[in-house]
Structure formats: structure tokens, C-alpha cells
């Protein structure tokens, strides 16, 4: 920044430093933050690619084993819906391509939505964008600057993915050429770019960050569903072409590379950004979709701190539960066919990792176990977000406004934690029930009781995480979000890597997911569940005690 500054002499006012235009400052400001997370995602994708390649080499070293693998995967509707259409898997590259690019484009798209709505609507709502717009710039230029800053994060993701993939290929038998490596890095990067642009556009359309993120998430959900339905239902295969995730699926960077599919995706990004910039000329604080600030007073639930939590979070709570029910129904309905594939493939059983290696049941239970592992991760994500919100209430001074009245600190925190705990359990249990409904509709043998218990079991790591985060909130409040999302990412990464490569058990033990039985593949380990809950309660009590006596800490 100082390097770009110029100094001119003025006879009346002395030396005046001149800096870059505000849009460039804004771009740099955002780029610094986006670079770190973009690079981290790129490295995580690279690590996953490495683990998948090593896993495949060990699992299917012969052509016969590959044939079994291919047969199992191609008939597995559930996996196809989850990860995408399976090409002919006869090389390690094709396997890695299918496994990694089925997951990561969706994960990084969620990150891109959160980033872009924060930058382009959250900052505006907080009044910080005004500071830039009061300089020698326009709203459109500021939006372009913000998009450019976020693109730096995408560039970091692209570079790190490519470098990590190239490095991983030396040790795994992957033999991609430069074009393939670049194409592989381009797929998740462009997925993130599309949904960064969707988030940017929805930030112009909607008046609040929550609404903007909700709209963009709905678009991502729709894109995923279109791709999943198109891949899993032959009669609806054309739906794949209606989704940018479907276009990216067609690229197959490490198989039969079709780089042409990247062009419409890039074109979509350009169009979305252009529309965003065009709409950015609106009044500051306004939105393209009219949003009235006038409303009739509805005071129900506004009589207690607990009621306030429910009132303010009812939308997101409903969205989480609805998403768990819809996902449970969808993936439950694939249980029967997926189960047949799992049951017939010893190779796939091993693909699930050590947790399922001891499983005595096959088929649908194994498939349901994989789905409930994902449910565990999602419920942990909910808990991390709920505790992050608790910290935000303190950091922004909203908590002051309650605690200077007749509200007990312990009561306030207990209410927040209780809501998070009940919601986490509800998300997991509803997912279990919905999975049973979906599975039953396809005459699967999976019973309600075992899926209900699997749901309860899936809530255990989230509740342990909740207790741990209350502890962190009590002792080191500013670390609450970092620890929450950090542990979530760590556990997710270890489970993904651990399913394919051998990782030292001391390292694996640090994952909250690692110790939990993969119900309904095996019966829940109630001792572990009780230990998790007990540890969570003890940590939460310690954190609650500390919160009661410590200074409130602003941002």
C-alpha cells in the first residue's frame, strides 16, 4: 500500500499523500482474507486427491478388482446421486476424478456463498462499505473491486489444488499431464466461482445477508438436486445439463478430458458478475427485490432470552431441519439399490474405511452408515455455527443490552446451549426418521428403531463439540468460531483421508468422528455416546462457570 502511495507538495497544506483508488484498496483488503481460506481449501483438495489415489491403488491393484469396483459403483444409485455419474473406472486417475470432484465442488461452493454474501451484503449492512463509497469511487466499481478481491482467493485455491495434485501424483501412480492437472484444479475453482457470483448477485437482490445467503444456498441446493436426479434417474438424465455442477461433472479431468465444458461455466460466471455489477448501482442499503422495513409488531416469543433465541433463529432452525428431512428422504429412497451394490462388493466395504471394516451387516446398512457419517458432519457444522453466533452476540454488544437488565448470564447461555443441543439432536433424529421413510418407500429392510438410534448416535459428536465450544467460549471467547470450524474441518479431513490411507491412530483419535460407531452398520456404542455426552456436559459446565465470572469481551 505504501509502495503505491505518491506524495505531492502543496504550498498551502504541506505534503499530501495520495493512495490508490478505494476500489483497489477494497480489492486488496478482501484479497488478503480470501487468499488464506482459498489456499487452505486448495491444499485440502490436494490432500484428498492424494488419499483417494493411494486408496484406489491399494483397493483395486488388479484389473479384476477394478471390474468388481466398476460393477459395484455403476449399479449404486445412492452413490451416483451423492457423488455423480460413474465413468468407466479403470485407472487411478478416473477413480480420483470421480471421488474428489463429486464432493469438493459442493463444499467449496458453500464457502464461496458465505464469503461473497459477507463481503457484498454483510459489510454493507454493517455500514463499513460506506467508508469506501465515500471515497473517489462508485458502487459498481466497489463491487468489481470486491469481486476481484475474492477472485484472489479463487486463484489461490486453483494454484494450491494444482500444485498439491502434481505433488501427490509423484507418489501415487497418477500420471496426469499439465493440462489435466490444470483442468482438475479448475473444476472446484470454477464451482466456487459460480456460487461466489450467485452469492454476489443475491446480495444485490436481497436486503440482508441472511436472505442473500439463503437464496444462494437454495440455488446451490437446486443445482445439486438437478445433478443428482439427472445422474440417478435415466429418464431424467437431461437434468444434468441444467446444472453448472452437471457441466463440471462432464469435464473428467483425469479421464477423457472434455475441457470444453469449462467454457459455459466460465461464461455463466461472467454473466452473473455482469448482472451483479449492473444491479449494484442501486441506493446503498436498498435491494433489487423490494423489502419493506415496515412491519406489524409481533411480540410472541419476545418475553424471555430463550424466546428471543427461538424468534431470531427460527428461520435457520427450520431450514436445517427441513434440509435434514429432505436429504434423509432422498438418500433413504436410494437405500435399497445402494445396499445391493454395497453388499455385493467387498472392495466397497473397504472403501468405507476402518470403521466399517468390522461390520457384520452389509447392503443398505453400510450405505446408511456412510450417509449418517455425513449427517454427523453436518450436525457438527450446525453446532459450530450456533456457537459462533453466541460469540457474535457478545462481540457486537447485543449481549450487553440483555445483561444490563434482569437477565442472568448463566440463564442466557444455558438457553442458547439448550436450543443448540435440542436442534442438533432434532436434525440428526429427523434425518434418521426421514431416511427410514425414504427407505421404506422402496421396501428396504431397514427398521425405524435402528435408524432412529443411528440418528441419536449421529448427534453425539456434535453434542461433545457443543460442550467443548462452550468451554472455549467461557475461557477464550475470541477463539470460539476458529476452534469450532477448525475441529469440524479437521474431523472431516481425517475421515476422508483415513478411509483411504493409513494414518497414525494418535492422529485419528483427535477426530471427534473417529470414535463413534457407524450406526446402523453396527449398533451404536452407548459407552462412547455416554462418554461424549458426559464430557460435553462437564466442559459446558466449566465454560458456563467461567462465562459467569469473566469480563465480557467485545470485538
Amino acid at each position: 500500500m505504501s509502495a503505491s502511495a505518491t506524495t505531492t507538495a502543496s504550498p498551502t497544506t504541506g505534503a499530501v499523500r495520495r493512495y490508490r483508488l478505494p476500489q483497489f484498496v477494497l480489492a486488496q483488503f478482501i484479497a488478503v482474507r480470501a487468499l488464506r481460506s482459498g489456499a487452505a481449501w486448495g491444499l485440502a483438495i490436494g490432500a484428498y486427491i492424494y488419499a483417494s489415489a493411494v486408496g484406489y491403488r491399494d483397493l483395486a491393484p488388479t484389473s479384476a478388482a477394478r471390474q468388481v469396483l466398476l460393477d459395484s459403483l455403476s449399479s449404486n444409485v445412492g452413490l451416483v446421486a451423492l457423488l455423480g455419474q460413474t465413468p468407466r473406472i479403470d485407472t487411478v486417475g478416473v477413480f480420483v476424478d470421480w471421488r474428489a470432484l463429486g464432493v469438493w465442488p459442493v463444499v467449496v461452493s458453500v464457502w464461496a456463498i458465505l464469503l461473497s454474501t459477507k463481503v457484498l451484503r454483510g459489510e454493507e449492512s454493517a455500514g463499513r462499505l460506506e467508508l469506501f463509497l465515500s471515497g473517489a469511487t462508485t458502487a459498481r466499481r466497489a463491487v468489481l473491486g470486491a469481486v476481484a478481491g475474492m477472485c484472489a482467493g479463487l486463484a489461490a485455491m486453483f494454484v494450491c489444488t494444482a500444485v498439491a495434485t502434481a505433488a501427490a501424483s509423484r507418489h501415487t501412480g497418477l500420471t496426469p499431464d499439465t493440462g489435466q492437472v490444470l483442468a482438475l484444479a479448475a473444476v472446484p475453482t470454477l464451482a466456487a466461482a459460480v456460487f461466489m457470483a450467485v452469492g454476489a448477485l443475491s446480495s444485490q437482490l436481497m436486503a440482508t445477508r441472511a436472505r442473500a445467503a439463503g437464496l444462494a444456498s437454495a440455488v446451490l441446493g437446486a443445482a445439486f438436486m438437478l445433478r443428482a436426479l439427472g445422474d440417478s434417474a435415466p429418464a431424467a438424465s437431461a437434468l444434468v445439463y441444467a446444472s453448472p455442477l452437471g457441466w463440471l461433472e462432464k469435464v473428467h479431468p483425469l479421464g477423457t478430458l472434455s475441457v470444453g465444458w469449462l467454457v459455459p461455466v466460465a461464461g455463466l460466471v461472467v454473466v452473473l458478475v455482469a448482472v451483479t455489477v449492473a444491479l449494484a448501482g442501486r441506493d446503498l442499503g436498498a435491494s433489487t427485490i423490494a423489502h419493506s422495513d415496515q412491519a406489524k409488531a409481533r411480540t410472541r416469543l419476545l418475553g424471555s432470552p430463550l424466546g428471543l433465541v427461538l424468534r431470531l433463529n427460527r428461520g435457520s432452525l427450520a431450514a436445517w431441519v427441513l434440509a435434514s428431512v429432505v436429504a434423509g428422504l432422498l438418500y433413504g429412497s436410494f437405500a435399497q439399490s445402494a445396499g445391493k451394490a454395497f453388499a455385493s462388493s467387498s472392495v466397497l466395504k473397504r472403501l468405507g474405511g476402518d470403521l466399517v471394516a468390522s461390520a457384520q451387516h452389509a447392503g443398505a446398512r453400510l450405505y446408511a452408515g456412510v450417509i449418517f457419517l455425513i449427517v454427523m458432519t453436518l450436525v457438527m457444522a450446525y453446532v459450530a455455527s450456533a456457537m459462533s453466533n453466541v460469540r457474535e452476540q457478545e462481540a457486537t454488544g447485543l449481549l450487553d443490552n440483555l445483561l444490563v437488565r434482569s437477565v442472568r448470564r448463566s440463564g442466557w447461555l444455558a438457553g442458547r446451549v439448550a436450543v443448540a443441543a435440542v436442534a442438533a439432536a432434532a436434525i440428526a433424529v429427523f434425518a434418521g426418521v426421514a431416511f427410514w421413510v425414504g427407505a421404506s418407500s422402496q421396501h428396504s429392510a431397514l427398521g425405524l428403531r435402528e435408524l432412529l438410534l443411528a440418528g441419536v448416535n449421529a448427534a453425539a459428536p456434535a453434542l461433545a463439540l457443543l460442550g467443548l465450544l462452550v468451554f472455549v467460549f467461557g475461557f477464550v471467547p475470541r477463539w470460539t468460531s476458529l476452534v469450532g470450524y477448525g475441529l469440524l474441518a479437521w474431523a472431516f479431513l481425517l475421515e476422508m483421508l483415513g478411509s483411504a490411507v493409513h494414518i497414525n491412530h494418535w492422529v485419528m483419535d483427535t477426530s471427534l468422528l473417529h470414535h463413534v460407531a457407524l450406526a446402523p452398520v453396527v449398533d451404536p456404542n452407548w459407552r462412547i455416546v455416554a462418554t461424549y455426552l458426559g464430557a460435553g456436559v462437564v466442559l459446558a459446565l466449566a465454560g458456563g462457570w467461567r462465562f459467569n465470572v469473566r469480563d465480557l469481551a467485545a470485538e
Partner: protein
Amino acid sequence: MSQTNRTGAHARTALDGERADPAATAGLGRDHEAAADVVLRTQALTKHYGSTVALQDLTIEARRGEVLGFLGPNGAGKTTTIRLLLGLIGPTSGQAEIFGLDVRAQRRAVHARTAYVPGEAALWPSLTGAETLHLLARMHGRTDVAYRDELVQAFDFDPSRKVRGYSKGNKQKINLIAALATRADLLILDEPTSGLDPLMEQAFRECVLQAKGNGQTVFLSSHILAEAEALCDRVAILSAGQLVEVGTLAQMRHLSALSVEATFPGPPPTLDQLRGVSNVRVSGHQLSCQVRGPIDELLAVLAAAHPTTLLSREPSLEELFLSLYGQRERRNHSPEQGPDDVS
């Protein structure tokens, strides 16, 4: 600065919330009465953040029905003091009591009788003004609904909009209305008129005077000196975490100079040799100066020159503040005197 003012003008006996024993001696009885009237008291209240001293040895009292101004430049420790009084943060050492209750250990009981207006309004953007007022009233535990409606009118506030759509001033009105409507025994106001227009500032002043008339105590942190001058019975001036001065305006004015302006039919007299006179300025037939201490000698010289007009004016709070703060800064920078000499 006098030691009496430095440590507060009121007795600091233990508070028990009871009236003084009428059978006690007159002096002791007065002490007990004053003690019973004390609503807020701090004793050597100190707050450090690591090596940073946010507040050092603050000893101060506020009585029932009093408006106590709490003044100081940015970073002086005003908001830290208020957060300590509200029990949001704990002291490094020292004590703070409100209604004779420890603000940390018995904060809920304290809060039930206290209303607070923060300088920066943090409110829930998705709630409307009416919903926020309802919420804040319920969280406090009591509110005078009819008075709240009056305040909504007095502050010309539209409660039907969502908080995210309000200006800074309107958000501040929500905090003010919510606090005043509780009719709490103690109002702690931290820069309460931040963002209010002059008309609303006037409405606020009327509300504070009305609260004072009702026997409520007001602890008013402000850097709007005209506001403090208009409302406060006593003011405390804080600088760099330390109490510089506390007292009534009358008590404090003797510390600063009196301004004198005079017009003469001919050239003004020479004042060079007069004791206590400073800042003498002459412009044509007009003369202005400042005098500290006895003024009889100055008046005699001026009268001998037959002035056509003569105006004298006591120092404003702003002048007092600047004078006190300036003295402190000069002493802090004086090579002969260390910081201990200031107080």
C-alpha cells in the same frame, strides 16, 4: 485541586440502605443521612488490561435525585467505569456499589433498579422498534407503558419500522425510551444523545430533569459540555483513567479565571501590574482579560477609567474542562513534576 473535591464531597460511611439514627449526634446524623442517600459509590476502583491502565483508583459517589456528570476526553476511562458499574467487567482492585449492593456479586439485583443507555446502539436488526421496546421492557422486568407511549411521542419516534432501517439517532431513541420508561432508580447514560438532533436533545434534557424531579439518580457520561452544564448538579472529570476533579460547577469555578470585558470612552487602562490578571487584550477602546482570585483591585482600576460597558462572566464548563485538562497536560509534561504531583 482541593483534597476534599478530589475524594468526593460526601461522606463515605458504610452503606446499609437505612435512614440515619435520629438520636445520633448532629454531625454523625448528617453523615448517616448522606450515606443513606448515596446511590452509587466507588472506592479506589481500578481496571488494568495487562500493562494498560484503563482506570486508576476512582473514588466517587452519586446521591439520590442527583445528576452526576462524568466527563473526560476520548479514552479517559468513562466507558470502562460504566462497564464496571454494570458488572459487565470486573475490577482489578477496588469496589463499586449501587444501592449498597456489590455491582459484581449482586448485579441482577442492581440491574433490576438500574437502566442503561449505551453510546452505541447494538440492537437486533430484524425486530421492529415496537418489538425491541417490548423485548427490552420484558428483559428489564418493569416498564411504565403509558410513559413509554408518551416518550415515543416526545421523541417523535416511529416504532413500526425494522431496526435495520433506522438511522443512528432513531436507534438511540429506542435505547433512551426503553431506559427512561423503566423509571429505574438509577439511570446510567453513556453518551446518550449521540446521533440526536437538537430538538431531540432538548426533549432528552426535559426527560432527565423530570427523572431528577422524581428522585431518580442520573449518571451522565458525556463529552457534550453544554449538555452536562445544563443538567448536572455535580461533574466529575476524568483524564487518562484518573479522576482530575469532582464537584459542583460553583465549587469548580474558583479554580478557573473570571472573564471580564469593558469598553472605555478613551484608551483602556494598563493592567500590567495587577495581581491575578492575565490574557489582557486591547482592541481600540475595548479591553478583555481574565482574573483569578480577588477582583477588587481590578475593579478599582477599571472604574477609575470610567467604563461605558462592563461585563463579567463566570467560566463555562467547557472553559473549566479545557483549563483543568490543560493544567494536567502541562504538569504531566513538566520536567520538574512527576505524575504524582497532579493529584
